[in-house]
């Protein structure tokens, strides 16, 4: 969702996208905002009404009315401001915002003051949840703004309005308003934001409208989508009509039940905790913490995921400003043709790639990577990784760096022309399987069922092709955090789960592969698989030893 998404982006720009004119009752359009290239359709609203950008989020309007009431009493907020402008905002301006937010939050803590006109249905609840996520991020970024601006002496009437609130929020008191040292500013911001979030209880605020901004024009480099034969286009339209459900993650389902969101115990309450953690520590420190490890294994909240992946995969450390843009401006390569063949076949069942800007973003990221690492160029399977990043809400540029980081740090040489890394890892996996489950291993070998036959799609796409999406996300939370080892633990967990079935019901290679290549989704439910994987103990040293065997 516009929300479920770009944290990074939000923390830089969000404040510019708050309510535009507080007096109006129906301010839901953000047309006046600077065009936002990364805005996208929220998957949860992509069914039914919201397929066109102009239809406003109706359930939001109710809520918004109460804000506008409140806003009318508050000093005007920053509207139509760009991010740089905002960063130069005065202390008093930021303070006003803090006051506004705290009032809004206070009011919302008492649900009776917010009278929704209609009782929300299930869908509404889902949408609202997504918006809450957005809101929590905005509050956090507000905290950042708050601490980031230089603090000039506070005008007296402003102090009168916001003084007490600022103090109670942990901000500088108006009397002691003095410049905050840069070093302390960040910690300061986190404190403020955390308190704001705590106050809000995180479940009662909905501050921003999903804003489907104008889509950017495709770059000249891109092959026009119109190149697709009309007939195929028509067929696709027909297919689209058959969509029965669009699930929480934006996947289209033509039959059966959509995937349910994986349970993340206490996720809502832990968002603030996560934001604080990610703001305060670097990847190495987080990786060393047992507490964080436990948090990761229970699942990272959706709103935190983009930032978490960006940080933990090592993308943040790898990123060089402007480099992605530079790579995008380089000339065409022969491999672009091969990339092109896979663009429409990457996530043909996801709304972002069918209706949204996903295909264009994917194309640009893969092309940039081919330029970035000519040794690899492009290999099938990479697209699934990029798609995962885009779907979970990383910006295009960050998706690129995340791809580069994962390929470099976790699955080296997987995508090289000889697929050397893949071969090595499947070999190690077979050895681990032989140690862990000799009976199953013998059965597979006897039937000529080589690990390369079934584990290739697992490893090459880091399970994104083989597991149901909620499970994929949980596996990826852990994979982003811990790296290569997780591949083996999850693969062994799958064979653990399937072992009895494979031994009893699958006498030949046909049945074995029939199962392993199309794992029935219900057998690898997120919690079940994670628990199985946690029971698999494989040390990094042991893996290294097995790799050394060659």
């Amino acid at each position, binding site marked *: 969702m516009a929300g479920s998404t770009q944290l990074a982006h939000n923390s830089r720009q969000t404040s510019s996208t708050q309510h535009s004119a507080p007096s109006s009752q129906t301010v839901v359009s953000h047309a006046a905002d600077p065009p936002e290239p990364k805005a996208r359709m929220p998957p949860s609203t992509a069914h039914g009404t919201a397929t066109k950008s102009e239809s406003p989020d109706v359930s939001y309007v109710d809520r918004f009315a109460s804000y506008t009431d409140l806003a009318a009493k508050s000093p005007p907020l920053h509207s139509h401001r760009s991010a740089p402008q905002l960063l130069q905002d005065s202390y008093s301006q930021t303070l006003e915002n803090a006051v506004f937010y705290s009032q809004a939050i206070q009011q919302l803590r008492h649900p009776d003051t917010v009278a929704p006109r209609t009782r929300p249905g299930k869908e509404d609840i889902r949408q609202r949840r997504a918006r809450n996520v957005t809101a929590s991020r905005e509050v956090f970024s507000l905290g950042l703004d708050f601490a980031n601006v230089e603090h000039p002496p506070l005008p007296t009437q402003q102090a009168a309005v916001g003084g007490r609130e600022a103090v109670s929020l942990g901000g500088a008191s108006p009397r002691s308003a003095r410049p905050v040292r840069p070093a302390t500013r960040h910690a300061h911001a986190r404190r403020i934001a955390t308190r704001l979030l705590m106050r809000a209880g995180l479940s009662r605020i909905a501050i921003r409208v999903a804003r489907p901004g104008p889509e950017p024009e495709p770059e000249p480099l891109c092959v026009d989508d119109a190149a697709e034969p009309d*007939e195929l286009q028509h067929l696709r339209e027909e297919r689209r009509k058959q969509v029965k459900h669009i699930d929480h993650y934006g996947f289209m389902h033509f039959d059966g039940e959509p995937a349910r969101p994986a349970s993340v115990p206490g996720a809502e309450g832990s968002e603030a905790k996560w934001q604080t953690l990610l703001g305060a520590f670097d990847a190495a420190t987080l990786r060393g913490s047992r507490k964080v490890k436990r948090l990761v294994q229970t699942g990272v909240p959706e709103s935190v995921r983009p930032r978490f992946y960006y940080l933990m995969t090592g993308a943040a450390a790898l990123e060089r400003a402007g480099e992605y843009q530079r790579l995008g401006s380089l000339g065409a390569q022969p491999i672009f043709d091969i990339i092109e*063949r896979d663009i429409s*076949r990457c996530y*043909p069942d996801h709304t972002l790639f069918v209706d949204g800007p996903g295909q264009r973003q994917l194309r640009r990221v893969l092309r940039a990577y081919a330029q970035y690492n000519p040794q690899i160029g492009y290999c*099938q399977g990479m697209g699934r990784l990029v798609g995962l990043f885009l779907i979970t809400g990383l910006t295009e540029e960050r998706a690129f760096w995340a791809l580069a980081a994962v390929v470099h740090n976790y699955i080296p040489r997987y995508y090289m022309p000889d697929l050397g890394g893949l071969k090595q890892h499947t070999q190690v996996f077979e050895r681990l399987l032989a140690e862990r489950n000799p009976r199953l291993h013998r059965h597979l070998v006897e039937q000529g069922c*080589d690990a390369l036959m079934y584990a290739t799609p697992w490893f090459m*796409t880091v399970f994104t092709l083989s597991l149901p999406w909620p499970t994929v996300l949980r596996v990826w939370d852990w994979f982003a955090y811990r790296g290569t080892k997780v591949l083996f633990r999850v693969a062994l967990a799958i064979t653990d789960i399937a072992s009895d079935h494979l031994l009893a019901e699958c006498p030949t290679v046909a049945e074995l592969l029939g199962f392993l*290549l199309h794992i029935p989704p219900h057998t690898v439910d997120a919690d079940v698989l994670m628990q199985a994987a946690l029971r698999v103990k494989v040390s990094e040293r042991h893996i290294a030893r097995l790799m050394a065997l060659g």
Partner: protein
Amino acid sequence: MYNRNHPSRRYTYIKAIILGDSGVGKTSLMHQYVRGTFTTQYRATIGADFMKKDVDLGDGRAAEVACWDTAGQERFQSLGVAFYRGADCCILCFDVTNTRSFENLESWRDEFLIQVGPRDPESFPFVVVGNKIDMEGKRAVSQKRAMEWCAAKGNIPYFETSAKKDINVDEAFRTMVRNAMDQETETDIYSEFPDPIRIDAEDQETQGCAC
């Protein structure tokens, strides 16, 4: 190829490999053949995919055909050994609107033969399939050119198909299965008895080849 513990020895297991450049429609062909469906939602195949179908050839012979749909990108060829092992027949697939995919058939075929190492490469049951003939307007490889190539490679049967419109798909697979089973009956002569360990095993083999 082996008989699946079936009393009549008529029910045969056949392993078929589908090869060709990426995007020529291998997955579509397989799905059309096995399930009789076509969608635009196919994802790029990573590694290989696998489906099976029971086929009755109508002449008293039946087979279980295991179709192996492979990844089209060139670098996946290096995984071939694992996938091609024990293959009984092979579909070489190209896209009639894409000349390059036709030109690459040669290397797909050669690579396959090297990795499988059949007794008699010249008579290995290949079938060549020119897919996407529903896009006639964009055709880049003429029927004549394709047939000439097939003739030069030992009279490989050639089919022009459309997985989307279900044209000729079944015929192509059926021919391939029939040819594979014909081969089997030839080789059956030698595999009638389980191979005992013989000191003169070499002689045995020369005998075999002489026939």
